[in-house]
C-alpha cells in the first residue's frame, strides 16, 4: 500500500518537474495568435480600425477587445479569413470604420508642394521622400494607400489615385457558366 502510494507520488513529482521544465524550455515568445492575425491584416497601417497600426489592432482582436470587422482595406475577404481563424461568425464591415475601396496610392502634385514635411511625418511606412523646403514625392511601390498624408497637407496637393490594372497584374476572371432559360412545357 505504502509502496504504491510512494510510487504514484514519485511519478507525479517526476511528471510535474518534467512539465515545469518544458514550460520554461519551450516557452513561446510573443502571442502566436497575434502573429497569425497580423499576417491576415493588410498592413496598410491606416488606423481606420481605431488602433495605431495593424499590430495593435491584431493584439486587440486577440484579447477580444475589438471586433473583426473594423478593417476597411482588408475588406470582406479579410473579415472572412479572420472569422475562419478565430472561429467567429462573419459579419459585414462596420460602416463607422470606413468602406472598402480599390487599391490606390497617394500622389503629390509636385508643383504645388511647399516642402513642409508634414506628410513625411504622417506616413507610417516612410514612403515619402522629401526634406524641409524641398519638393516631396511618393515612392509609389511602397505606398500602402492609407490616406494618412492627405489631411495634414496644408496646400491640399496630395490626392489618392487608383492603381490601374496592367498586363502584369491582370488576373483571369473566374469562369462563369452562362445559364440558358428553359421554358416550362
Amino acid at each position, binding site marked *: 500500500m505504502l509502496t504504491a502510494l510512494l510510487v504514484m507520488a514519485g511519478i507525479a513529482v517526476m511528471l510535474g518537474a518534467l512539465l515545469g521544465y518544458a514550460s520554461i524550455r519551450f516557452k513561446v515568445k510573443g502571442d502566436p495568435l497575434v502573429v497569425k492575425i*497580423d499576417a491576415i*491584416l*493588410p*498592413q*496598410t*497601417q491606416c488606423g481606420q480600425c481605431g488602433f495605431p*497600426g*495593424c*499590430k495593435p489592432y491584431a493584439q486587440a482582436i486577440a484579447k477580444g477587445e475589438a471586433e473583426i470587422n473594423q478593417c476597411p482595406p482588408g475588406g470582406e475577404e479579410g473579415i472572412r479569413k479572420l472569422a475562419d481563424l478565430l472561429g467567429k461568425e462573419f459579419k459585414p464591415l462596420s460602416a463607422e470604420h470606413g468602406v472598402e475601396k480599390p487599391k490606390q496610392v497617394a500622389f503629390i502634385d509636385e508643383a504645388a508642394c511647399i516642402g513642409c514635411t508634414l506628410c513625411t511625418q504622417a506616413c*507610417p*511606412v*516612410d*514612403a515619402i521622400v522629401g526634406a524641409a523646403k524641398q519638393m516631396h514625392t511618393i515612392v509609389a511601390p*511602397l505606398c*500602402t494607400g492609407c490616406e494618412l498624408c492627405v489631411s495634414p497637407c496644408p496646400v491640399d496637393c496630395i490626392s489618392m489615385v487608383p492603381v490601374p*490594372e*496592367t*498586363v502584369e*497584374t*491582370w*488576373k*483571369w*476572371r*473566374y*469562369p462563369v*457558366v452562362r445559364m*440558358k432559360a428553359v421554358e416550362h412545357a
Partner: protein
Amino acid sequence: MLATLFKFEGGVKPDSHKDESSQAPIAAAPVPARLVVPLRQSAGNAPLPLVQPGQKVLKGEPIGAADGSFSAAVHAPTSGTVLALEPRTLPHPSGLSAACVVIAPDGEERWIERAPLDWRSASPEALRDRLRDMGIVGLGGATFPSHIKLKPGAAGRIETLVINGAECEPWITCDDRLMRERAEGIVRGIDILRHIVSAGRVLVGVEDNKPQAVAALRAAIAQSHGIEVVPVPTRYPAGGEKQLIRVLTGIEIPYGRFGSEYGVQCFNVGTAYSVHRAIEIGEPLVSRIVTVSGNVARPGNFETLIGTPIDALLALVAPKADTDRYIMGGPMMGFTLARTDLPVTKAANCILAASPALFPRPGTEMPCIRCGACTRACPAELQPHELYWFARSKNFGKAQEYHIFDCIECGCCAYVCPSNIRLVDYYRFAKTSMRALEREKAAADAARQRFEFRNLRSEREAKEKAERLAAKTAAARQAIAGGEKPAAAAMPAAPEQAQALPQLDEAKKALIAAAITRAQAQKEGVQPKNIDNLAPEKQAEIREIEARRAQVRELAKTPPEEPV
C-alpha cells in the same frame, strides 16, 4: 544511329490540320502603313524606350533597351518615322494596353549598319549580351529571353542542348516551313548556342509527321558533328519543353527548377535561326514567321515584321464569310482576340480564323463526374479534376498542394473532358489569383517591416533626445553644485524627481540664478561695439543723435495733442 526515346505520360492526338498551311513556301508579308511595336515583348522587365515621337529610325535600330538582365531589347522593324510612344491595346487575353512605339514606314527598308560577330573567338558573356541587345527571345510562344537560358546553371555545365522542332499544336506550321526552307541557318544557330554553353550533345526533336523537315535538317547538319535529329512520336504536347526534354533524354525536371540545373537546356528552332541572324549577320529580331490558317481561302506562312496589324495578315489569306472569331496561338493554347487591329508580336506564332464548323464552341458545361479522363490525359501527371474543384472553390492553398503551378496549360484535360468543363480557364484563374495574392503578401510584409522600423526609429529618436536633455541638465547642475554643495551633483538629473525632493529647491534656484546671469552676460556681450575708437567728430555726432532720441522719448511720454 537510333536514339533511345523515352515517354511522357498522358497527351492527346487531335487532328493535326498541318497540310492546309504547310504546302506553300514562306511568303513575305508586305510592310504595312503603320507598325505598332509593343515595348514589352518578352518575359521579365519591360524595355526602356529609346526613341521620341518625330524621330527617324532605321530598320533594326534599337527602340527599347533591355532593363536589367531579365529583359530583352526591342528594335524598329523597318525604317521610318516614330509617330508616337503611347499605350495601345496588346494582343493579350486581358485586352489591356501598354506602351507601344508607333512607326510610319518610309518604304525604303534601310538597315542600320549590320556588324557580324566572330562567335568562335567571342566569350560566352559577350555573346549573351549580344543576344540580349539583339532582342532574341524564345519564339516557341513563351518569349523567355534566350540569354538567361544560356547562363550556366547550378550543375555548372549544360551537357545536352535540346532543340525544339516538335511543333505539336494543330494547325501551326511556321517551324515546319522554317526547318524545310532554312535548315542551314537553324544549324548555324545551333552551333552558336552550342558554343556558348559548350554542350557536348545536341538533340533536335521533330515530330514524325514532318519528314521533309527532318530530311532538310539532316542534310544541313551533314558536316556538323554531334547534332542529332530525332523524330519523336506525334502526340500533343510533345513540343512542351519539359515533355520534349523527357522524351529525348529521360530527364524529368521538377517544378520551380530550370533545365540548366540538370545539364540540359531547350531552344526552339525559330530561336536558333534568329540567333544565327543576330550573330552571323548582325540582324536583330525584327520579324517572325506567322502561320495564318483556319477558315481562310489561302492559308500559309508569312515572314511578318513585328508590329504588323493582324488585319494586314488576314487580308493576305482571305478569311471565309462564316468566320466568327480569330484565335491567336493554336486551337489548344491560344486565346480569342477581341479585335484584329492588334499588332503581331514576337510571341505570335499563329493566327487562326475560326468558324463554328471548324472550331465548334465547347458544349454546355456539365458537372464533373470524376471520371478521371483528364488525369489520364495530363502530360504533367497532375490530377486535373482535383485542381478543378480547388480552383472552383478558390481553395488556393490546396490547389498549390496539388502542384497547380506544374500545369503547363496545354489544354489536354479540357480536350478530353466529357462534361465540357473549361478546365484550363479555372487553372488560369487560380494561378493568376495566387500570383496576385503572393504579390499582395510580399507588399504587406514589406509594409509591416517598414512600419516597425519607423516605430523603432521614432522611439530611438525620442529616447536619444531625452537623454541629451538630461545630460545637459545634469552637467549644468553639476557646474553650479560643484562650487557650493558637491552632494547635489550626485542627485538624479530628471526634472520631475528634482521637484519631488525639497532639498533640491536650493539647487533649482541656483540653476535659475545661473541662467539669469548667463542671459545678462549674453545681453552685455551683444552691446554694439562699432562706437569704440571713433574719431572725435563722429562721437560728437553720436552724442547729438542720442540727445535727439532722448528728446523724442520725452515727447512720447506727454499725451498727444488734440487734432486740429
